């Protein structure tokens, strides 16, 4: 992000930090596209193909170094997500807002996540990204929040943003929110 911003935050004395987040969500929701956008342009991988297993990526936002575990969302690999819950500081849950058909599947996965012993009871911030907002039949973030019953999450900070990973629209706000949360929780 902008150099000016970095200088500014240094000036205000925000400590340099590294955090680890895990990116999950159904396959084809746009996780890998999102990380690649968050990375510096020079490192960007030329093309994005469905992830097998996981990819570890790094990016920096303000003065915070992010390590992102970009997991594969395919059904047969989802059971592997939980292996990476324990030591993460935050979760990015990406939803394809145009995929109405599988909204229920995504919801199911969310509840499995929330019940997992390594997640339940921890004050982990969860950033929901309602991606592919550019697609015509996309649901609004509010609709998705309702469909997921996000109100019921009381023990964790969460927020939902609509994004378009092709243009980057909405991403900045989302990551900014997450960074703020992480600065509060991670000592």
């Amino acid at each position: 992000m902008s150099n000016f911003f970095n200088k500014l935050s240094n000036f205000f004395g925000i400590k340099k930090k590294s955090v680890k987040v895990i990116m999950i969500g159904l396959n084809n929701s746009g996780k890998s596209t999102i990380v690649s956008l968050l990375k510096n342009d020079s490192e960007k991988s030329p093309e994005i193909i469905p992830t097998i297993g996981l990819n570890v990526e790094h990016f920096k936002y303000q003065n915070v170094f992010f390590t992102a575990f970009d997991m594969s969302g395919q059904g047969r690999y989802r059971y592997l997500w939980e292996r990476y819950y324990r030591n993460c500081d935050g979760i990015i849950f990406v939803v394809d807002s145009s995929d109405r058909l599988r909204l229920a599947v995504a919801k199911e996965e969310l509840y499995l996540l929330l019940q997992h012993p390594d997640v339940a009871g921890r004050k982990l911030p969860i950033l929901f990204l309602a991606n592919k907002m550019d697609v015509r039949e996309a649901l609004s973030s509010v609709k998705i929040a309702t469909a997921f019953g996000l109100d019921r999450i009381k023990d964790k900070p969460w927020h939902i943003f609509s994004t378009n990973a092709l243009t980057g629209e909405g991403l900045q706000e989302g990551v900014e929110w997450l960074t703020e949360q992480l600065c509060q929780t991670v000592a």
Partner: protein
Amino acid sequence: MAIKRDKKEEEDGGNPFQSLDKTSVLQDARTFNETPVEPRKCTPILTKILYLLNQGEQLGPAEATETFFAVTKLFQSNNTLLRRMVYLGIKELSLIAQDVIIVTSSLTKDMTGKEDLYRAAAIRALCSITDATMLQTIERYMKQAIVDRNPAVASAALVSSLHMSRIASDVVKRWVNEAQEAVNSDSIMVQYHALGLLFHIRKNDRLAVTKLVAKLTRMSLKSPFAVCMLIRIACKLLEEESSGEYADSPLFDFIEACLRHKSETVVYEAAAALVNLRHTTTRQITPAVSVLQLFCSSPKPALRFAAVRTLNKVAMTHPTAVTSCNIDLENLITDSNRSIATLAITTLLKTGAESAVDRLMKQIASFVSEISDEFKIVVVQAIRALCLKFPRKHGTLMTFLSAMLRDEGGLEYKASIADTLISLIEGNPEAKESGLAHLCEFIEDCEHTSLAVRILHLLGKEGPKTKQPSRYIRFIYNRVILENAVVRAAAVSALSQFGAQCPDLLENILVLLARCQMDTDDEVRDRATYYFSILQNQDRHLINNYIVEPPQVCVSSLEKALMLHLMETPEEVFDLSSVPLAPPPLSDEVQAAPTVVQEPLAALGRPAVSKEESASDRLRAIPELSWIQGPLFKSSDPISLTESETEYQVRVTKHVFKNHIVLQFDCTNTMSDQLLEKVRVQLEVSEGYQIVAEVPCQRLACSETSPTYIALQFPDAPNLTVTNFAATLRFVVKDCDPMTGIPNSDDGYEEDYMLEDVEVMLADQMQRLTKSNFGAAWEEGESYSELEDTYNLSGINSLEEAVRSVVSFMGMQPADRSDRVQPDKSSHTVYLGGMFRGGVEVLARAKLAMGNSPGVAMQLTVRSPNPDICELIISVVG
């Protein structure tokens, strides 16, 4: 003492990993989960894990999986050293851990990324976690990597492809164009690896290999390694060309031209190839031997070693050629490199005259204690060859061997000495007594159970036939007192042999066996009781059939036959005679032949399942054939019914049952533009035979081999069973696209193809039966029916040749080593034991004599309980 040394090593900075403990190392591996990753902490821990795994430490699947996932977290760090350790960790753990595909994307990223340090290693790790289905998803990257400009990357991709082809050969086959391109690489390593892959992809397609070799031999490859490989492929092709004529072959010319290559590696490879080719004449290898001779005086020890080792190997096949290097070899006797010296001396021993033996043996004795077991075995093998060549020298050689036997040495070394002594004893009657004495002395202090057991068995077999059998009893009984249970059991069996064959000793043996019945071990007691009760009975028939010649059924077949019996016909009496016999131990003809360096017998693991057993399982699985009664009696070796380079190739294997014979035709289609369907063999069966089942092969694509079967019932009269059937291959052809193998249309046309006749021979119906005391068996056989006839074996010019052809024609086992002809004798008698299908015993005695007329005269006497079988044998011989 040991503790002290450990301390000292620690001070010296010895192995810091010596006292690693798996549990605590795996505990430490949890550090990998922490953020941020600290490479300086994690790299040593990962090193320790790798060390443990390489030391053979076993990890359970759960432990391995947990560690594996901890390792995957290290991808967070961009420390290059750590990342390369991560690749190694992945490769090791991928063998045991689950869900290893989790790192697929991470590795793919590294493989295609910008960091060159990562790319090659990432490819290797990727291939170790990939299975056949996954391979498709990374196929594109593999193809790119094979032709990558970075040689390390291309090589890694090529070698990994070679490994992958074991699990997904069809996918790897599609990379042939990339491999072809890589053969043109400027990097010597890439070129070599590319040729390796290319050959591997094509190796089952002879025509393609021939084309490949023809093209590359003209191209002059840059990489000496690739040229070496090409030489090996060329040799393989030459050996497969059955003609055995190298004269006009461009392949042979190519290898010969490589003798003038600028790389020494290539020159050596070519020379070694030429001398090792099976049919080269002495004149053809002369240039190669000159090259080796030159290498013998090279200042480089590696070259001298390679040259002398090769000469040593071919000393027996090309003695005259090797003799021409004698002066150079003499110079190497005092080479400071003991391995070179040993090989030089043993080569000279093999080719030298009898007069040189003593001098050379003295030379060896001066440093034999300094060389490793491996080379001591080379010495032993040379001595073995010498004993066969100069029987009169057995005194010197045997003393030398027994001195070696008393020295320190591992099992393989000791076994090779014992093998040599045993073959000396068996082959040379004059050496028997002194050889047995050496062995008796050796087992007094022998720490190798398996060797002691073998020697005891030999003493039981040979001891009773010596002049003074009683002298061996003490040595054997000492084993009963002093050794472990396995040796004690063997000693009990050996004792019983003396009781069975030496009436004078029976009384004493019974006393000893009675004592053995108090042994603490079940097996020892059981044996003692068994032998005691048979011997006490003094029934000659029982003693002969259950001690001297115990039943020789194949134990695993017996187990199968019993299971089958219980499942199918438990109410009937079990027929022991239907159980296949255990195959006789490796035939001595093969062992004793003075060819190139022999493998020590002990190293040759016997195959776990016999040919018959695996064939039996396969046949039982075919519904049309599974009803055939009785266990499989004998399977022949495959015999080719076509010339070697024809369009269609057929090999027949004959599986003989009690009343049936199943012909298995393995058909190969080499036509890349044809798909064959409904492939079957048509037989013109001769009188008495009846076809009872047929299993065609429905589909045979190019370069595939598949079987079709015909089952026949044997004629009732044995003398009709030995015959020929005319055979024709019949099938429907569909023309197809050579690239894809897909037929152009659904219509096919019928074709047939003449095959050579299928012969059913006597040997197919006969199993070898080892009679260790033929005299006793022959006497037993007096109650059988007997037939006798005289023949003139024309076209056979020596007694050895006559023995060989009678043995193989009859398919019976020579007893009492009667297949060995004493040199310079004009007559010889062979004793043969066999079992005809259905479990009928057959004994035969063939008296052979060289007459005045050309050929060998033979008087053959056959005894068997079944007169028809006597008649069959008498009528088919000749």
